[in-house]
């Protein structure tokens, strides 16, 4: 052997290249390796829920189960009372999930019931909005919340395209953001199914790995093309959500936000944030340069007017 092992040399160069690239990206990207990693498709095994709106009978047992599991205060109107369907309700600080009733244009007298709760986005707007990292997307799939660091700015509520997170405005001392956590701490980490899904009497809710649920949803649509519209809501909306819906009525007629697009929300501010390091380096160069030009001009003016040159004197005073 005359020289060193060429494979070693190759590896070393490769390593140097990778190291330089990593170093470069950590300098020029303000959020390398953070939740915004654009090309990360999400953990393969992450969990989700499929809601089949053609099956839901509006019994609200999911609401009751959620209320109990999450130790929320008892509702003013009991869960068996159908009068709640007279008005459209939304999630609030005491209610993580609500079922609303919509008329069915195809089969009059057979209304559609829609369960609403946090969609647990794959790339959540709320997580990217949170300035203290109180909201987190777990590897398991649920988006969870740490009240111990929340400062109560409520930007998460501003950013959520589904109008889900709520705030305890009447709590003066320990107000919290409230939303469905998909029973992450209470059940999922113990290997159990979220409470709403266990209580559903008609299997309108199916809990499982998101990729399996997509296959299931697609096969239901393929097998019953007359029963379903050809759309899995949540498959691609805002980059994908853990909760997926299939329905017999177009989603726009059921109160689902339309036109959300498929871009993950964190991407909307990414371009702006990537501009930050540029401003940090360009302004000092530019303004520092202007200042030095100004300073020189002042010195020359002073010299011309016959004053003694005082190089230390600046404009401050």
């Amino acid at each position, binding site marked *: 052997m005359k020289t060193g092992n060429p494979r070693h040399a190759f590896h070393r160069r490769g390593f140097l290249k990778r190291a330089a690239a990593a170093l470069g990206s950590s300098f020029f990207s*303000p*959020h390398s390796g*953070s939740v915004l990693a654009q090309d990360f498709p999400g953990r393969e095994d992450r969990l989700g829920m499929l809601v089949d709106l053609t099956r839901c009978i509006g019994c609200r047992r999911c609401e009751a189960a959620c209320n109990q599991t999450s130790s929320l205060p008892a509702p003013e109107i009991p869960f068996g009372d159908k009068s709640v369907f007279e008005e459209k309700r*939304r*999630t*609030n600080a005491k209610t993580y999930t609500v079922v609303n009733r919509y008329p069915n244009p195809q089969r009059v007298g057979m209304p559609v019931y829609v369960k609403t709760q946090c969609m647990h986005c794959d790339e959540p*707007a709320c*997580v*990217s*909005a*949170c*300035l*203290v*990292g*109180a909201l987190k997307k777990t590897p398991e799939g649920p988006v969870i919340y740490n009240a111990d*660091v*929340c*400062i*109560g*700015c*409520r*930007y998460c*509520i*501003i*950013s959520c*395209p589904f*109008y889900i*997170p*709520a*705030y*305890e*405005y*009447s709590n*003066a001392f*320990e*107000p919290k953001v409230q939303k469905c956590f998909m029973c992450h701490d209470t059940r999922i980490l113990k290997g159990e199914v979220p409470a709403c899904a266990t209580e559903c009497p008609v299997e309108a809710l199916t809990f499982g790995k998101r990729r399996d649920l997509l296959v299931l949803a697609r096969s239901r649509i393929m097998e019953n093309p007359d029963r379903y519209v050809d759309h899995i809501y949540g498959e691609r909306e805002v980059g994908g959500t853990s909760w997926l819906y299939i329905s017999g009525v177009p989603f726009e007629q059921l109160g689902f*936000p339309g*036109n*959300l697009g498929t871009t993950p*929300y*964190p991407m*909307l*501010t990414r*371009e*702006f*944030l990537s501009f*930050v390091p540029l*401003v940090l380096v360009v*302004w*000092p160069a530019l*303004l*520092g340069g*202007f*200042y030095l030009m*100004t300073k020189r001009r*002042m010195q020359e003016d002073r010299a011309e007017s016959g004053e003694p040159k005082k190089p230390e004197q*600046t*404009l*401050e*005073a």
Partner: protein
Amino acid sequence: MLQVGRPAREWMTPFNVVAGLIVLVGLYFIVVRFSQGLASITDASDDQPWGLLLSWGLFAGVPLSASGFALGTAVYLFGMKEYHPVVRNAILIGFLGYFFAVVFLLIDLGRPWRIYYPMFVSFGPASVMFLVAWHVALYLSCQALEFSPAALEWLKLKILRRWALALTIGLTIFGVILSTLHQSALGAMFLLAPGKLHPLWYTPYLPWLFFLSSIAGGLSMVIFVGMLTQRFLKRHADAPYLASLEPISLGLGSAASITLFSYFALKVIALAHGDHWQLLSTPWGYWYLVELLGFVLLPCFLFAYASSRNNVTLVRFTAIWTIGGIILNRFNVSLIAFNWSLPDRQLFHWKELVIILSVVTIQILTYRWIASRMPVLREDQQYQSE
């Protein structure tokens, strides 16, 4: 006001009595807020979590406080000596604007005692608000240092003053960086709500629209407050300051005119970029045109016309008009056109308005207290030769 040793009759002016009453009522509601929660004083809801307190205090208050960085750049970095008489006032306006923006934030945050968490406890660097929090905190400190020479002259601390002065250039450049980023970041915060903000106001250019308009806002504030000092704080100002006010107002007016024109152009570009022309013939479109034509293009022309005719009165009127336009724009983005598609919206609660009036009154009294003691509208005679 409240000068020690002066008889009570002297400071019991009608202005002070009314101001004191407003402050007391506001403080009462602030106590209510901290003992019973935000629901007791605001109309904040799960759909509309931000209200008037932030629209006024943060989103309108911060751009109107761009005076410090705008004038600091002109005088210290570009050497425009003729603007030197107003630079301290501009920095004071900016400093107090940021200080009270933080006060409003403290009232509105759910747990304000954790306001330092983003700096020291838990970090969310992917959030635009994280950037806003850091930059407002840094810029507030930066402006406190920039203003400190005036305070140190008042306290007769010569050596400290010299040290503070040595920082001027660095602080000014740092201030421009921070201002560029957080003024624009306030707009960037709404990039995360494309479905909620009306498409006429939602544009990827929001950050730069916010930045550009803040310069016009800051310049207008210098003109406006300058006018007020000439009227109400004359005895605390020196002759060079008073003599310079009118030519400076004319100069700032023409600068504001150019800024407003760029702002107008970018707003039209944003409109074209989003291809939202057809929305202009809707009620929201008419409202948008009121803002665009009445509060951007009109003051742009008025400033240009008034400065070319040396009409100081018109420049001052236009400055007030522009300030109104900036407030209108920030209210539109953060309150009025936000959640525009939701039915039955409550924009704000009257108690929020009382709190705002009260805090603004405290802000004015603080300004008067400082400007009537420290060398802001005048030069300290001891240092005049420097």
